[in-house]
């Protein structure tokens, strides 16, 4: 959609000094973004809370407390109960587990699909390119929400893993295009040609030379996709097309609490707040990763202070294309 003009390194001539390792440099840059650190901290708290806290709680998420049905938060049930007398805190933690797993598997998986298809299309060119791109366009035209809503309940009986794969299959297209155009610029570079003339197999070249050279894009995209997948999951679960009972996710909890949101706010707003907090953390982390990988990008927080670092890393990354402009155009999941 946008043609990203490669941003020239803005720094002065390279200063001779002891060079740091790439990962140390990235870590230093990442930690300079305070919001990203906050994001990591809260996400760690959420993960630990979701998996460790339930063992210390009196109420399990399956327990029904028939003496306290639909009660407000008090000393016994810290965040209240729903109409069936189930503890909201325990339920939310359980839902959080599922949503976290779905996001953390689904996000990278989406990026993986995008990388494979985009790189193959860009590298092989010719009819492979045409077929793959045509397939990509078809997936963009197909109403994804409709498809998922019909397929998911049929295929995902009992297992949510298929559901995650389905979400990933319908979410990789925009990134796939970016990967393809980046592959175009990489495939005629000397190191790729050298590998090619030494007889390295094409798929090996893609995995060993092409994809590592756009690692920054892929990592940042994976972080963005985590948020998108979690949102998509909650949207589908809200209508009952996603995670099926007895499994619960934050989406199903939000759906269950929605009718009571005005009278019993805790049933709706506790899981909702959890979901928003999680999405916010992921977004901050993605932002920090972009800053770390691409200090010249517009909006990179540490730009001014980092001019001497700017020329150490290949700055031609269109990471900005994906993160600065959050891609959420898939129909059905928009509003």
């Amino acid at each position, binding site marked *: 959609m946008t043609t990203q003009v490669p941003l020239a390194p803005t720094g002065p001539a390279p200063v001779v000094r002891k060079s740091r390792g790439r990962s140390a440099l990235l870590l230093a840059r990442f930690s300079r973004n305070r919001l990203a650190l906050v994001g990591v901290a809260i996400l760690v708290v959420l993960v630990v809370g979701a998996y460790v806290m339930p063992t210390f709680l009196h109420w399990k998420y399956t327990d029904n407390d028939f003496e306290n049905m639909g009660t407000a938060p008090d000393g016994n049930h810290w965040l209240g109960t729903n109409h069936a007398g189930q503890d909201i805190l325990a339920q939310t933690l359980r839902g959080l587990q599922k949503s976290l797993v779905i996001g953390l598997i689904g996000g990278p998986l989406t990026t993986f699909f995008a990388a494979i298809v985009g790189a193959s299309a860009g590298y092989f060119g010719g009819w492979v390119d045409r077929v793959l791109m045509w397939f990509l366009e078809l997936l963009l035209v197909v*109403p994804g929400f409709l498809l998922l809503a019909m397929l998911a309940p049929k295929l995902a009986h009992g297992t949510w893993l298929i559901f995650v794969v389905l979400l990933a299959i319908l979410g990789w297209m925009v990134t796939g295009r970016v990967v393809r155009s980046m592959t175009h610029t990489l495939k005629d570079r000397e190191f790729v040609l050298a590998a090619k003339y030494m007889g390295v197999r094409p798929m090996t070249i893609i995995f060993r030379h092409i994809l590592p050279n756009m690692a920054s894009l892929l990592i940042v995209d994976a972080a963005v996709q985590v948020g998108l997948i979690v949102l998509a999951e909650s949207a589908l679960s809200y209508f009952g097309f996603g995670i099926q009972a007895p499994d619960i996710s934050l989406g199903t909890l939000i759906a269950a609490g929605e009718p009571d949101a005005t009278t019993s706010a805790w049933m709706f707003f506790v899981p909702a707040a959890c979901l928003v907090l999680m999405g916010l953390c992921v977004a901050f982390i993605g932002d920090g990763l972009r800053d770390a990988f691409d200090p010249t990008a517009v909006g990179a927080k540490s730009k001014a202070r980092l001019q001497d670092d700017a020329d150490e890393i290949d700055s031609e990354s269109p990471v900005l294309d994906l993160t600065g402009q959050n891609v959420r155009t898939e129909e059905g999941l*928009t509003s």
Partner: protein
Amino acid sequence: MGRFLLRRAINYLILTFLASSGVYFLASLTLEPQMNLLAKHPHPPIATVYQILNSQGVDPQVSVFVRYWHWLTQLVLHGNFGIAADGGSVNTEMSQRIFVSTELLLLATFLGAATGVVYGAWNALRQYRFSDRASTIFSYAVIATPVVVIGVTIRTVDNWLGSPIQYTGMYDPGANGFFAIAVSNLEHLILPTLTLWIVQMTLFSRYQRSTMLDVLGSDFLRTARAKGLPRRKAVIKHGLRTAVIPVMPLLVYNIVLLFTGATFTEKLFGWHGMGEWLVDTINTNDINAVAAIGVFTSGLVLIAGLLSDLIYAALDPRVRT
């Protein structure tokens, strides 16, 4: 340019055809319309059930290819989408719902697009100031929030305030006379519009901010300033105009696709538009209606694609030739 657009249009047409056929087959294979009739107590005799289904063209005993051919010829030759599960015509239902969706979306999308562009550009001009940082965090929060949560929060706030604004349905069923209904309709429009507006504005402002930042550092803007244009005039005449171009396709896609995408807003606020229909038809196993939505949605993508190509050409002189 004309030939380019024509080629694009033909390609889009083929894609639309394949996508809608795919939706038809998928709907026929996954939905079970007989459940609607068998769930009744007492349910009609099996023979009658299949007779009814057959009259609607959704009898699972008939080969799916035969049904598809019948559906396709009816659609292409007569523009007829068939009969819905409740026995009514899909065409009538759809045209009503398109009208409802249009009313709901028209204001929200144009407000969202206009304010989003202005707000994003303003933030870009004030990069790293407090207002920019605050709105960055705010927009991350909005983007991370499901629309359901935004809508319900707005509804809850309205209730806490003692419901000064009515929100369920298109208008108050108690209203009589044209004038009363029109006023009530406008009142019912406020909260759903607010919901859609927040989401759309945030999304567009992020886009606009980043393209604007690109433009602000560009040479032509410095030249414009150097030849003596005041900053305000240079930014608006040269900067904003250039920065809006790359955002346009996104605007167009978003606005057009919102027709079936405003599912949550319509569902929450009781507007019977296309988005709500999408969910309802799947829940009621309504194959013909689902297929109609498939055609409609992929048709929208086609229109959005062509429209954004056209607008791009109109705005960017480099593409025009």
